[in-house]
């Protein structure tokens, strides 16, 4: 009887095709990625049929959360040398007699998401690294007529970057009272053109039904 040869080694799986595939997927993801920004408030944007993409630069985004807080965000401009964000903050500091240090300005420049901190607390917010303290400081930008910091932010942004476009990112459940206030403040500052940020949805129109 012939001897049955037993395999001495455990079977070896050739992982090369898998690695190849992984490399391709990884390269694709790395090249196409635009990081999702971690916003301070979760916002479910309403859907629309609009197909216009959000502008990348020269935007001023107002984030209206479902619990009626206002957050604001700007971009640094299409050239990193422009440094719009620290300029806006300096301008804003001048109005409220606040002097921001170079590190604070740098921190503000790099800050990735929207900010909803009253300007007087901004120094504390930028100095700390503790996420819990930061979270506690984000009480939304005041928009009362006595302390209308949002109007000042809009004014400073427009004076630093005249070509800025206003974007509104609201939650579906944001009350209209707040939206109306924002629109009024914007109109006071001569901003009449808005981009409402929405997510895409398909719409069907039945033409035969209409023609009946």
């Amino acid at each position: 009887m012939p001897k049955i040869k037993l395999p001495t080694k455990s079977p070896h799986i050739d992982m090369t095709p898998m690695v190849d595939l992984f490399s391709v997927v990884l390269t694709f993801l790395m090249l196409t990625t635009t990081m999702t920004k971690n916003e301070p408030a979760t916002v479910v944007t309403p859907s629309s049929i609009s197909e216009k993409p959000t502008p990348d630069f020269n935007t001023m985004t107002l984030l209206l959360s479902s619990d009626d807080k206002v957050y604001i965000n700007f971009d640094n401009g299409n050239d990193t040398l422009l440094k719009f964000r620290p300029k806006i903050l300096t301008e804003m500091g001048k109005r409220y007699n606040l002097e921001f240090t170079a590190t604070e300005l740098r921190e503000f420049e790099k800050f990735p998401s929207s900010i909803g901190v009253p300007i007087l607390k901004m120094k504390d917010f930028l100095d700390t690294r503790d996420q819990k303290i930061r979270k506690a400081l984000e009480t939304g930008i005041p928009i009362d007529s006595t302390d209308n910091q949002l109007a000042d932010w809009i004014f400073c942004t427009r004076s630093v970057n005249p070509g800025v476009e206003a974007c509104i990112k609201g939650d579906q459940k944001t009350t209209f009272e707040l939206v109306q206030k924002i629109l009024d403040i914007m109109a006071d500052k001569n901003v009449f053109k808005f981009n409402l940020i929405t997510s895409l949805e398909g719409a069907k129109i039945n033409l035969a039904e209409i023609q009946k």
Partner: protein
Amino acid sequence: MAEIIQEEKAGGKRKAKKHAPHIDMTPMVDLMCLLITFFMLTTAFAKAKVMNINLPEKIKDQKTEPPKIVASRTLNIILGPNNKIYYYPGVIKAEDYNNLPPLAEADFSANSNGIRQLLLERNRTLFRKIDEFKKESLKAKTIAPPDSIAKSISKLKTDDDTGPIVLIKAYKKANYGNFVDILDEMSICGIARYTFVPIAWYDEKMVETAAGIASTVTTPVKK
């Protein structure tokens, strides 16, 4: 290197190599898996879209009169509470302030009670024109660039003088989603002229009557 030295110590026996050296790829695969997972979770694939809206300028100078529009073509849409829409045609005259007309009700659905039916009905001529134009441009042998199609459609819209002029107003209990939805309906139905205006006190009163909410509106004193 280490292995080679060890082998030499063992007696200098050299094994004839039968196979090509096998590299253990498991750690590399592990790392790649991690990276792929990370990128997949952080990537935002669908970029958010935007919808443009132009608001009428605020009249700061008391002398300038607001532009006049034809009452017969005007359609007032009021966003009410609980995702309801109320509408009335025309304008409410000063003598009717004590005897406000009832409001018609609609919702955001696409069925017979939806606002879309009403808008399409009123905007039929323009909507057909736009639709025919789109069909023709699809049939055409030369493909027109999308810019020129958009331009022609906006020309059709500005030339139109049959469609309604829609004034959108919002009651304070409405939400932002309703606002975006109604603007969306405007673009779906190809309404040429629409704008968002602040709500008047009589509009609020009518909505409160229609929705059965206790009135919070104070009637302004006549000057």
